[in-house]
């Protein structure tokens, strides 16, 4: 008898059906990867198993856990099972812990509830569990609060809570999506070793095929509330019998077509740089440590110099907090640097005053990460796309509209979309609108700050294709900022690796990925999930 057997599971919320006839089987001690793009119903399947669906949800079908039917189980019975026989780890380590309780209390709470121990005994057990997940009491006292821990450490606490009672089944819902790659690799290792040492079954949910490929014994692929494909991990990924699985696998390793040959700065006869940054330093005022201490400034960008050539795609890679977003803002004149110079197309951005900045911004635009937050929800597309034309007061209204229409068509949307609002478009389409807005002034350089990080893999591939095609057609240069190494490798000519405000390594994209020199870069490259590599290792 399998540990978890789901069959005919159907969930509806109101009139919309969230899950349709979902079935899967998970054996004891096994890891099953549940893969799908956003909205595919992965989390809903997990929450159904925990019976923690939103109240409006209606659930039918069968979920058998260890021979017991959960769909019929009483709330009281479910409370006994949750946290004892089934543990769950959630996606957002920043919000998944109660900010007002110590980590010791939060881990001990479940132990007290299920094991009936005294508060002191429960705390001792909590300390053991925390040590097992890599938070030994000697360094991480039980009296710490969640805000005193980093994202990765918080996720370890989340895992400790879920594993404290040695559950038979552990459900992990995108447990590493919010974390940096090097941390992600550590958390994945931790999960694997816990599952082995405690003989737990793991239902591992992720949008990232490469991550799942490295973890799971079996894989189930979901889309639009249905299971499309399921089987042993390596068969499923190698043979790709199902077209959707194949598409997903291809998209996650997608390399856009490039007509322009890569532009290298050390090539003989290289043109003058379009953007030249020299010894740039950016500081933020720090927090005061006491009444009589001067606040120490926080140095976000520490003496950085680099060039971007015309038509070059320059990648900038780094983990969260390394200063890459501050750098982008400073280049655009949104943040004043403490020292150094930025020369863009022979315009001095740092000391040139407002006039120079206006001139530079015509030729240099930005695409942001969040396809939802980058648009004023009250404006129509025509106005959104035309906004940078504010820099060209000489244009008439019809000129502006024509240019907006042309920009929309350049990114594969229709001029008739001008009258719509941003919320009428999907995430990928919104990102196209954001690119159109950046294009409307016919710039020479676009700073792309994590432009595909919020998108599903298939959409991501399309947007990367678009960016590459636009460079071929318009001769654009990009400063492409990302935490995702596979994307940077696929698109960029040259790459810079940033850490703690400094650029620690730079070079041609292939060189950096195939033969990284610095230890940190090597760690970064090795930690990045890579489907090809996982399949090759077998």
């Amino acid at each position, binding site marked *: 008898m399998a540990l978890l057997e789901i069959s005919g599971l159907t969930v509806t919320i109101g009139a919309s059906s969230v899950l349709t006839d979902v079935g899967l089987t998970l054996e004891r001690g096994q890891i099953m990867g549940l893969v799908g793009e*956003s*909205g*595919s*119903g*992965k*989390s*809903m399947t997990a929450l159904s198993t925990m019976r923690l669906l939103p109240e409006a949800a209606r659930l039918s079908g069968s979920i058998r856990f260890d021979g017991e039917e959960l769909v019929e189980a009483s709330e009281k019975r479910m409370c006994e099972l949750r946290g004892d026989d089934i543990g769950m780890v*959630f*996606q*957002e380590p920043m919000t998944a812990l109660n900010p007002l309780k110590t980590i010791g209390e939060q881990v001990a709470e479940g132990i007290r509830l299920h094991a009936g121990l005294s508060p002191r005994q429960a705390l001792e057990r909590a300390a053991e569990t925390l040590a097992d997940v890599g938070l030994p009491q000697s360094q991480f006292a039980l009296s710490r609060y969640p805000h005193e821990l980093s994202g990765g450490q918080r996720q370890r606490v989340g895992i400790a809570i879920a594993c404290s009672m040695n559950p038979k089944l552990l459900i992990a*819902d*995108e447990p590493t*999506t919010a974390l940096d790659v090097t941390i992600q690799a550590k958390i994945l290792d931790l999960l694997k070793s816990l599952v082995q040492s405690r003989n737990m079954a793991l239902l591992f949910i992720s*949008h990232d095929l490469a991550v799942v490929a490295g973890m799971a014994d079996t894989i189930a692929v979901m889309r639009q509330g249905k299971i499309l494909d399921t089987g042993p991990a390596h068969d499923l990924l190698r043979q790709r019998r199902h077209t959707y699985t194949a598409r997903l696998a291809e998209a996650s390793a997608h390399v856009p077509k490039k007509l322009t040959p890569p532009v290298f700065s050390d090539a003989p006869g290289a043109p003058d740089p379009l953007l030249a940054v020299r010894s740039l330093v950016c500081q933020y005022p720090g927090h005061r440590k006491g009444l009589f201490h001067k606040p120490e400034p926080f140095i976000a960008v520490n003496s950085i110099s680099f060039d971007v050539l015309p038509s070059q795609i320059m990648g900038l890679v780094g983990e969260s907090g390394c200063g890459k977003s501050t750098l982008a*803002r400073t280049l*655009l004149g*949104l943040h004043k640097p403490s020292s150094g110079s930025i020369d863009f197309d022979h315009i001095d951005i740092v000391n040139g005053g407002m006039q120079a*900045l*206006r001139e530079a*911004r015509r030729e240099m*635009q*930005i695409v*942001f*990460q*969040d396809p939802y*937050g*980058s*648009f*004023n*929800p*009250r404006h129509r597309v025509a106005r959104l796309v035309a*906004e*940078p*034309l*504010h*820099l060209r007061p000489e244009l008439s209204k019809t000129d502006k509209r024509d240019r907006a229409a042309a920009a929309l068509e350049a990114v594969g949307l229709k001029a008739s979309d001008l009258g719509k609002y941003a*919320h*009428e478009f999907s*995430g990928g389409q919104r990102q196209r609108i*954001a690119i159109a*807005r950046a294009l409307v002034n016919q710039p020479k350089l676009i700073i792309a700050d994590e432009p595909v990080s919020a998108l599903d893999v298939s959409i991501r591939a399309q947007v990367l294709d678009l960016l590459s095609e636009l460079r071929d057609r318009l001769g654009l240069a990009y400063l492409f900022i990302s935490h995702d190494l596979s994307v940077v490798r696929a698109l960029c000519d040259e790459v810079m690796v940033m850490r703690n405000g400094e650029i620690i390594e730079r070079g041609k994209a292939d060189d950096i990925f195939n033969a990284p020199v610095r230890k940190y870069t090597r760690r970064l490259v090795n930690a990045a999930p890579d489907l090809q590599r996982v399949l090759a290792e077998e």
Partner: protein
Amino acid sequence: MSLEAGSVPDHVETWADFRSRAMRSRSLLVGTILVAIILCGALASFIWTPFDVTQLIIADRLKPPSSTHWFGTDHFGRDIFSMIMVGARNSIAVAFVAVGIGMAIGVPLGTWAAARRGIVDDILMRFNDVVFAFPAVVSAVMITAIFGPGQFNAIIAIGIFNIPVFARVARGAALSLWSREFIMAAQVSGKNAARITFEHIIPNIANLLMVQGTIQFSLGILAEAGLSYLGLGTQPPWPSWGRMLNEAQTMVAFAPHMAVFPGLAIVITVLGLNLMGDGLRDLLDPRLRRER
């Protein structure tokens, strides 16, 4: 929130959807009806009232409600129903102007503080804290001590109290908008802070200000009633709800109707405004919408 919950297709809403949702919102409907009743009474009083509120007919004094005098008469024989109609004018006018003062000063201050941050923000917010420490009654006491009682005092006192309220609401909402990417996109388009505030910030916080405005309006009605009860607001011979209650208090033993009706008028107005505010908030806040 997990990726999946966040990507439940966002409610693409047309104007027709919005209207039908507005019609279904019960609190908005009831609130609007209550406010409309009072408003109609106030407007009608300009051209017609059942009786003249300035005419004293001692023979008719302290009559209980009847078919002639629907809400009875007061100790000078004036018709209470007519007085409530005329009193509505005062209450609404005072509260409305006071909210206007609060918005006209508070919103620019709040959005300015959010746009400039730093020292400007610190100074404005400290100023806000100070003003906030003066409840309307206390300001009214001070103003009256210097300039003597009058309706104008009530307006100023309530208006001053509204300034920090609107400044705080506007600042908080504007600050959260300033960190949004579409504001950065506007900056990269070369727009300055003032222009961004008018084009992007104010239209996006207008909903919130409208909801707060309704709430402050209802608080203004209550405050005006309180001040004119103390004699610090509207002066005779103009009737006002608060003063009617003051006069009713001494007669409550033998003419309780004098106290009941003006009070009910206040309750209906305030209740109506609060229901409207709640309804509007539910209607305009997409976060609450999803929860339902």
